[in-house]
């Protein structure tokens, strides 16, 4: 990265940090690009050069978070672990990553449910991020498939979409989770991953013996 790019990158990061603070303080809806520019000490026009809308800022937040999650996963992935543990690890890194921004996420979710919102899970902008995420999941599933640990049972075209919905569901559960250290989310994650993957392998879902 050249000096100019790295300076640009630093400005982008600064705008993001300031925006997150403002979103958490004033609410996502009430924060304007003008507020952000002012707090950053950057001209409003320059700010628009980086982010046309505040939704773009939110998008940028998710993109960076995803990159960091994938990077950390690659570093920590236990090579011999079963698939359920690998997916558990990935999702728990995600949750850990967004923990400091929980309030911001709550604000975003109310926005993102509007079908017209750029942040809506099926908007064009979200699609790009979604594809990036699912590509990554796909590579994890693929290697499990190669080692014979996992089979899509002919659901190839659906499996990634199903995983995406599962992932969103876990996120929503986490946001509403009032248990100590949100441990219910992790119990749900652990048990549902074991349940789904065992069922796909044709085993008794939670490892109990079957009885007639």
């Amino acid at each position: 990265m050249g000096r100019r790019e790295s300076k640009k990158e630093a400005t982008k990061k600064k705008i993001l940090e300031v925006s997150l603070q403002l979103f958490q303080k004033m609410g996502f809806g009430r924060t304007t690009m003008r507020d952000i520019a002012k707090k950053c000490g950057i001209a409003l026009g320059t700010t628009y050069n980086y982010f046309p809308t505040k939704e773009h800022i939110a998008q940028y937040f998710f993109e960076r978070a995803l990159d960091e999650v994938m990077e950390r996963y690659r570093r920590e992935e236990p090579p011999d672990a079963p698939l359920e543990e690998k997916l558990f690890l990935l999702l728990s890194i995600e949750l850990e990553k967004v923990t400091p921004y929980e309030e911001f996420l709550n604000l975003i979710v109310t926005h993102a449910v509007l079908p017209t919102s750029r942040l809506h899970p099926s908007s064009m902008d979200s699609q790009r991020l979604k594809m990036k995420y699912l590509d990554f999941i796909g590579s994890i599933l693929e290697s499990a498939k190669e080692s014979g640990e996992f089979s899509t049972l002919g659901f190839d075209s659906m499996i990634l979409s199903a995983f995406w919905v599962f992932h969103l569901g876990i996120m929503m559960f986490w946001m509403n989770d009032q248990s100590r250290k949100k441990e219910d989310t992790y119990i749900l994650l652990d048990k549902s991953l074991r349940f789904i993957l065992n069922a796909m392998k044709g085993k008794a879902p939670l490892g109990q013996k079957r009885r007639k």
Partner: protein
Amino acid sequence: MGLMGAGVVGRNTLAGIRKIGASEERRREIDQKTHESNAIRIFDSMSQMKGAFMKLGQMLSLQAHTLPEPYLRRLADLQWEAPPMHGTLMRMQFRNETGRSPEEVFDGFEREPFAAASLGQVHRARLKSGEPVAVKIQYPGIDRSIDSDFANLKTMLSTIRLSREQYGEVWNAVEEVRLHFHREVDYVQEADTIEEFRRLLRDRDDVRIPRVYRDFSTSRVLTMEFIEGQHLRDYLKGKPSQAERDAIGDRLLDLFFRQAFDFGLIHADPHPGNYLFLGDGRIGLLDFGCSKKFDRAFVDEHRKLFKIAIGDIDVLERHYKKFGMITDDDPKREQKKAALLKMQRTDISKYHEDRLFDFGDAAHFREIIGGLQELAKLGLTTPGFVLYVRAKIGLYNLFHQLGARVNCHKVYRKYV
């Protein structure tokens, strides 16, 4: 859970319809079948609570004429099954509890557990200062699931046809196990118990109880000294001499009386896996999640029961009358007296005879179990008594497997 409840109720209703106009024998058969399918359905659906139900089953089977036989049989079949945690979940739980990862806290922390414990798993590690430790880590959320699971269990049990008196007994037993279970999942309480035992037994250098490392323990993580030793099966493979096995029996019986009569506090989980044989005749005691305190009155009465001369049915009867377990107009009075007398001969007589008693005798063990079941059927046991009996039977079972011969009289005289 709701669906399962509906299933049980539905089957009971169906059975009720089938019984209309059926012969007495056919009715009993229908009841039996309904109980069996309900029992299977209820217990199979509760994988996480199996440990609790196993205890409940043991208590109920010792306690009475309470649950229909098929339920008891299914309860007795249940095995302790803590849900396994993979490395990632285990590390997360450890970090949530202690604020640091196991690798930061310990040297050589082993990711694979070496044992399953009460609703968790045990890992080997070393403290930074070098001491080998066993780190017990609990599956998340168990403590909070107890009450909801027990509420469900009570709903299920209420579909069984029982008399009001029987319900009372079942409810009491369920409640005792629920409270017991709350204590068992709290590792701080277990740490307290371990330290109490270590204090009470500090003069006994033949018994080793692990040291607790409080700095690395919480209510869901328990770090203890790792005691090197063999479990019963491996110990027996080394063909220890009769004298050595006898000495161990003697020592453990002495330890039991000391707990029951001097401390009024017993280690009530006499599973053979909770004893370690250290090779030099010393014994390691593990797993203090299940202990029971007795009040002075219980201990004194029990001491008296031991002292009653063998065959003295009048004194024996008087003893049980005090607790209202036998009354003058009791229709089962003679039956009860006979059962008590038989049990006294089977169990207590060895404490009155100054000679080696061979616990290897399988007939003795069978008679004890049969006698207890008989007492339970006749309503001659109490909830407090059940954990005590469980501990004693566990000990007899261990002696039986050891093939130990013990002069019970000599040991008993020190305490009674």
